[in-house]
């Protein structure tokens, strides 16, 4: 528990800043909706009719003029990408940063097993992502009530659950990479997040590479898909769970044998 609490304490400031920033951005998106929706009614058909561009962002699947449709697209872009960055930064710095700053030596010369270090650090990652999602969800709910729009609770929760799972998957994958590298690797982490984001856009664009959506966590955290079907794609989720399992195994396998410089 000591390492978990220590990680939570160390990540506190970054968590607060990211939570506030993403909450603020979603709040702004929600607040401007009434103003936009009056103008949007005419635009909605146009947005849905922009061919590949509409498909890339899933705008062909939902009604942009409808609040939930609008929210799923805004939410997908803001919370999806922002959250993925947050998760990637958390994951990639979890282990490698300790080696870079030489604090790994401090930690690992205490009587704690490396497996315990990994488990508590992973738990802290998931907890921080949960707090971020919960904060953004609470803020969004408050602002949806303020503007007086109706949104089905189940679908909104499903939307946020998918983003939570997506962020956990990205955090776990970058955490695994972190176990293999000795330096910071922030670029690698952000690259992974951006890469997954674009894989999903690519898979939306052409049917030939549709399989890509099974690889990227954005495949199941696709807001427009979730709103259109009122469910999370089970196959994508299953593939994601398997990828997480493999990443965890590799991280434990590598880190318990790693020479700490």
């Amino acid at each position: 528990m000591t390492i978990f609490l220590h990680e939570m304490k160390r990540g506190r400031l970054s968590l607060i800043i990211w939570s506030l920033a993403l909450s603020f951005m979603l709040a702004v998106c929600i607040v401007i909706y009434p103003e936009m929706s009056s103008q949007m009614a005419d635009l909605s058909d146009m947005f849905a009719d922009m061919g590949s561009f509409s498909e890339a962002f899933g705008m062909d699947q939902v009604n942009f003029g409808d609040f939930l449709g609008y929210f799923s697209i805004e939410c997908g872009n803001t919370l999806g990408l922002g959250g993925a960055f947050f998760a990637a930064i958390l994951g990639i710095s979890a282990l490698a940063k300790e080696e870079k700053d030489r604090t790994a030596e401090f930690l690992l010369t205490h009587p704690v097993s490396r497996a315990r270090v990994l488990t508590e650090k992973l738990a802290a990652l998931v907890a921080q992502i949960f707090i971020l999602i919960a904060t953004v969800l609470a803020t969004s709910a408050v602002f949806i009530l303020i503007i007086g729009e109706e949104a089905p609770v189940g679908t909104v929760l499903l939307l946020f659950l998918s983003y939570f799972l997506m962020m956990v998957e990205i955090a776990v994958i970058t955490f695994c990479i972190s176990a293999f590298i000795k330096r910071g690797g922030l670029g690698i982490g952000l690259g992974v997040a951006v890469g997954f984001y674009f894989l999903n856009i690519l898979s939306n664009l052409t049917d030939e590479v549709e399989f890509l959506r099974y690889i990227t966590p954005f495949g199941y955290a696709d807001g427009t898909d979730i709103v259109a079907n009122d469910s999370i794609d089970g196959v994508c989720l299953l593939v994601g769970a398997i990828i997480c399992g493999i990443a965890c195994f590799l991280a434990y396998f590598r880190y318990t044998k790693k020479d700490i410089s």
Partner: protein
Amino acid sequence: MKAIRTEGLTKYYGKSRGIVGVDLSVEEGDLFGFIGPNGAGKSTTIRLLLGLIKATDGRAEVFGKDVAGSRIEVLSEVGYLPSEASFYNGMRAGDIISLSASLRKKDCREEARVLCERLELDISKRVEELSLGNRKKVGIVCAMQHRPRLYILDEATSGLDPLMQREFYSLIRERNAEGATVFLSSHNLDEVQRYCRSAAVIREGRILVSDSVEKLAYTGVKRVTLKGTAQMPSLDGIKDIKTDGGNISFLYSGDKRELIARLAETPFEDITLTDPDLEEVFMHYYEREGN
């Protein structure tokens, strides 16, 4: 019981040498010096003892427990002071000290308070604001507050001012007197000679010699200094000749009667015969190995 025992301990980093076939034996309760120049393999040996890195070959035991297999049990008996202590930026010294205690699941507050007082450490400062010496003190408190059976100290006094060095050694001596074992790595021979009972010399990854400090310092070699002469006596077994104005000084490792006989033929005003200090002995081992 042996506090530390290594057998053929070997570590290669890829193709580059760390240590090769290191055999060490440190008795429980000893104050053991581990001497060697930078890059000789002192830190590699220590990192192997702490389980931070895995041996390429051979084994290491601490209090009879295999380090590779029982890392947790070993580490709960050890207090480690790194040569350059690094801590989490943004944390206060006091938080680091209590984090260390809590990672050991021990309440060390009273002991930590006493140590901080003796070392004059201000625990309210953030670690990045601390000077090198004060960071070292945080490391010392973390290594000592849980009263371990074995202290592994890597370049223990680097960064500490002479007064603090003295306080540090008096702490170490107290703990040693209470029965704790101290394994002190250093390139400062004077320090080892002054405080340690046994020592091993490591060079280029291999142990050159391991013995009591007394025996290490007594090699039968004498430092001969002749005043008022420029004429070298013709002798075998002479090393490290120093000339300074009208004085000659050299290390002599041959037959002492031969020395007296040759000196009788040499004009000089005054003579001193002394045992060389450990530093000179160390240089002597260097040369012997080099030759």
